[in-house]
């Protein structure tokens, strides 16, 4: 299961997730142009060096009346005309799938430098319509048609599953949200960095913290976000030249040490049935994680310095704690209580703020997580840097834990 070749991450860029591009009168083409401007500028990579590009986007046709987004890469600069491009979709895991493809091409020796971009423009429509569009990440006609804001309700069922199996104290979920909002305050690109939030507010209900589904509240939910992120994956040959050119040591450049990719049954009913006969509530998520550990040659989370995980809802991060192996099944709450997952703990989760704090532009989240893992491992995360990160993991989930993609990113020196 070892990787055939090293695949390095040379850096990238994300847009400010607090921006509302519709209010700025801008379309998805502007967002793509800006994230590419930022990506090329921050890495000092020449557009002409690219061999291919993969775009992750969930629902451009719905939110922005625009598909075929790979072609917009070629629109950026005349030197990119003719570049092989494509778009990938796996709901909220879209740009992680794009990253898997890019990595596979470099691992196979086909290309040396491949760009991965995730992009989503979501604030172009009202929230109810947006909720309906998000329903296409589940089995729409069976689970979401005619349901207002279906996704919080689907994840309420995850909450129910946990509660039935192991019991859940809501305060633990409130802690997760509070930590992620606090972390976001240190992230200059986080959507919620100027929002008011604390544990008291998270534990409250009322006008400003309504229960959205059955038990999950507004503070348990990730955001509706406009955003894009881009990263550059490179072969060892390209990365060596890049390191020399930029005065770096290749041993200090992060690379993909392992990955995992599993798809669960799309219907939540089927997931529920599996959860009842497994110690892990989300067995395919767990397998994606253990696959990544195996490929990376690590035993488990004791060899990770931090994790960027998919907290589309607080309950999803709650599940992730034990699925990563930080606790036994049913005991993830212990890592909340003992401070493990906070900045300063032994394995901080979502130092960027995660989807709850940083934001969740659906198709871009995977690329954003990989960028944040790169920043942490290369010591470039600024005010939200976790001390001494050598290895980080990301978990990106599409739908109701349907598509699961895990990456382990690390450096040698």
């Amino acid at each position, binding site marked *: 299961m070892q990787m055939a070749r090293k695949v390095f991450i040379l850096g990238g860029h994300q847009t400010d997730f607090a921006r509302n591009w519709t209010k700025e009168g801008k379309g998805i083409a502007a967002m793509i142009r800006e994230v590419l401007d930022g990506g090329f500028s921050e890495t000092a990579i020449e557009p002409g060096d690219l061999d291919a590009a993969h775009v992750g986007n969930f629902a451009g046709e719905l939110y922005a009346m625009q598909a075929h987004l790979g072609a917009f890469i070629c629109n950026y600069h005349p030197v990119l005309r003719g570049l092989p491009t494509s778009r990938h979709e796996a709901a909220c895991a879209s740009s992680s799938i794009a990253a898997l493809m890019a990595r596979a091409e470099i691992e196979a020796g086909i290309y040396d430098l491949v760009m991965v971009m995730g992009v989503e423009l979501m604030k172009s429509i009202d929230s109810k319509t947006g909720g309906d569009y998000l329903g296409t990440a589940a089995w729409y006609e069976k689970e979401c048609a005619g349901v207002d804001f279906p996704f919080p309700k689907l994840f309420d069922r995850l909450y129910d599953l946990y509660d039935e199996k192991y019991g859940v104290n809501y305060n633990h979920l409130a802690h997760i949200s509070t930590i992620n909002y606090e972390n976001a305050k240190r992230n200059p690109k986080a959507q919620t960095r100027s929002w008011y939030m604390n544990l008291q507010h998270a534990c409250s209900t009322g006008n*400003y913290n309504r229960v959205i589904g059955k038990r999950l509240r507004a503070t348990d939910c990730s955001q509706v976000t406009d955003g894009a992120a881009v990263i550059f994956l490179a072969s060892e040959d390209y990365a060596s030249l890049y390191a020399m050119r930029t005065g770096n040591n290749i041993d200090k450049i992060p690379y993909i040490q392992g990955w995992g990719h599993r798809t669960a049954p799309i219907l939540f009913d089927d997931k529920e049935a599996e959860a009842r006969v497994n110690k892990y509530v989300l067995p395919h998520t767990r397998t994606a994680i253990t696959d990544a550990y195996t490929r990376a040659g690590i035993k488990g989370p004791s060899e990770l310095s931090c994790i960027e995980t998919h907290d589309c809802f607080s309950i999803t991060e709650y599940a992730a704690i034990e699925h990563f192996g930080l606790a036994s099944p049913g005991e993830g709450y212990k890592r909340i209580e003992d401070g493990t997952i906070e900045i300063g703990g032994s394995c901080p989760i979502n130092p960027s703020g995660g989807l709850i704090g940083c934001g969740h532009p659906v198709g871009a989240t995977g690329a954003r997580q990989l960028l944040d893992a790169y920043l942490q491992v290369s010591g470039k995360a600024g005010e939200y840097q976790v001390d001494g990160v050598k290895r980080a993991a990301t978990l990106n989930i599409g739908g109701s834990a349907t598509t699961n993609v895990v990456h382990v990113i690390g450096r040698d020196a």
Partner: protein
Amino acid sequence: MREIKKVAVLGANGAMGSRCGGIFAQAGVRCTFFARTEEKALLGIDNAVQQARSDILREYITPKTYDELEDELPECDWVFEALGEDIGLKRGYLERIDRARNKGTIVSTVSSSLSIEELAEGKSDDFKAHFLGVHFFNPPGKLPANELIFHPDNSDMLKSFVSSFCEDRLYRVNIVTYNRPGFAGNRIGFSFLNEATLYAEKHGVDTIDYLLGPHTGRAMPPLATIDLVGLDVYRAIVDYIYNKTDDERHETFSLPLYAEKMIRKGLLGRKGQTKSGFYSKGKEDEILGISPNSLEYSPLKSMKIEFVEDMKNYIHDGEYTKAVDIIKKERSPEADIVRHFILGYISYSYSRIGEVTPKEHGISGIDKVMAYGFSWLPPSGWVDLLGGPSPTISLIEKAGLPVSEQLSVQSADSHCLVSDVQKYLIAR
């Protein structure tokens, strides 16, 4: 070590008082909101809660009337004055504060233009040592700029404490400004806005707001902005700056006669009783613009000037360089107007370095106040977009405007420190 556990907010029923007080409460500081009646203070609390989007804030704020001021002040570590922009009113309350406060209590005013030294005149030495301007921008929940105007008697320790507190606890972007009329933001911003009122007299309200629309780096066109500020408040600031300053753009602060007439007629903008100012609404909710000559309202002209629409299209697609190239190259009287205003803004901003903000801060202080206080594309952001200091200077000279030495000496390698300036170019 100094701690801020409790803040008294005066004028807490007003938009500024309630929202600024709310920012303290969001930081976990207990606040007492003072107003003329308890009902008004409670309305202020509602405002603060709405800003934070959390009812939790109510636990941090107590409503009181001014009758209880002397009893409450000895328990307060900071008195935040946000009363009406009337020097007599403020001085009266500041005298009461001086008599009732403990030594060492910080007292700040959120005044947007009145002299800090004048407000502190006649007060105790300890008051002066702890009195300063802390000018948040409205709404402070969305605009983090904070002009800090220190009194000459403030110690370095106090300055450092207040700066750190505002930055670290209140999430403000601090801009140290000198005690000049309008401080930094209003001095520069209101020159632009008022010159727009002067041009509107000749060219029409709708033409000026169309030409100087969001595609030129401001979320809102200038005359619509004045309607939002309120013409009475606007006049107070612009008159004060006109009367107390005398620089190369002095006449841009002269309020045109038609605007005076509008104010006398009660056409004060959105907040006035008539809800009319430069703009009004017709019977079918259609937007009407005022004629500066007749003060009558009529439907807006449907304006489509090719270069403006081209700019908007380029901005929509993220092709900012092409949009700005139009500003540089387009030949027409309308483009001259756009250039006059943008280049005038850059010229005036750079010329005020050292007068409104410390010289050693360069353009960065003014950049910050215009970006984070006004949501305007900051002046050195424009210099970057125009290609750097040298092309900008050529354009300014061609437009017949003065070139500041500060711009002349700016290095071509030095760039605007405000991130994402392109977000201020808006395709509307």
